[in-house]
């Protein structure tokens, strides 16, 4: 288990690096029980990405059954941190959604609009 892997309550993140990409595979339910831990994890992701020259993070949500607004905010804070970097240091975040989990469509629309060019949603 590396420092970017995480498991608590019903939420799990498995991280894998492949060249200039980092894949975060999420599963379960991200809610108030894991809100601080998710925020801390995204902090570690940010530091690792900058330190290791990673250019893109893929967040796989296909097995994520539900995410509450507090955890949603954790992703917002992360995206804002990337936006506030000098342009050459900014990296790309791509979300991989599931059509089965209908809530993802509208939540990701909101987050991608907010994230501008830094954020893309696969399949849109």
């Amino acid at each position, binding site marked *: 288990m590396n420092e970017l892997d995480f498991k608590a*309550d*019903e939420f799990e993140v498995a991280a894998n690096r492949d060249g200039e990409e980092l894949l975060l595979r999420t599963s379960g*339910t991200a*809610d*108030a*029980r894991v809100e601080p831990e998710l925020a801390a994890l995204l902090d570690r992701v940010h530091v690792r990405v900058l330190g290791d020259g990673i250019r893109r993070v893929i967040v796989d949500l296909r097995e994520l059954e*539900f995410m*509450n*607004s*507090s955890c*949603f*905010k954790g992703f*917002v*804070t992360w*995206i*804002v941190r990337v936006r506030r970097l000098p342009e050459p240091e900014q990296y790309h975040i791509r979300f991989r959604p599931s059509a089965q*989990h*209908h*809530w993802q*469509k*509208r*939540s990701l629309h*909101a*987050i991608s*609009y*907010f994230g501008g060019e830094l954020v893309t949603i696969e399949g849109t």
Partner: protein
Amino acid sequence: MTFEPSGHLISVVRRFVRAMCEQILGSGEFSSQVALVTHELLENAVRYCRDEQTSIALAVREQGGALEVEVKTENQARDEDIARARGLLDRIAEADDLFELYQSMILEAADRVRGSGLGLIRICAETELTLEMTTRAETIVMLARLRVPGGQKQ
């Protein structure tokens, strides 16, 4: 249903509500939206309740050829929390463009240390449910309502 705060129980209730709605409305977006609203309202109720008691009621009824789904939570809350919820709902009601308001509240949330302040706006901006709040003394009642024309399964 009345229960003491527990994150695990909120997830159990969300899944139950979703499964029940899927039997009535199908497995499409409406059931997912009712489940989302249930979770957000319950987490708010649990987070801000004063006496560790939160109740939730789910009702589905046929009305004028449509199905109406209601999710209602009740809990005791502090005056300042009631005022904050009222202020948020007023801001939502006064918005000319709900999505634009959602975007500005997302930006405000980014620098918050505790909580997100996004639960109520998320309900209003990401679902078809309408949201009303009433108070009785120190009790806050949140009522979310979805009307499905024709009541057809998705």
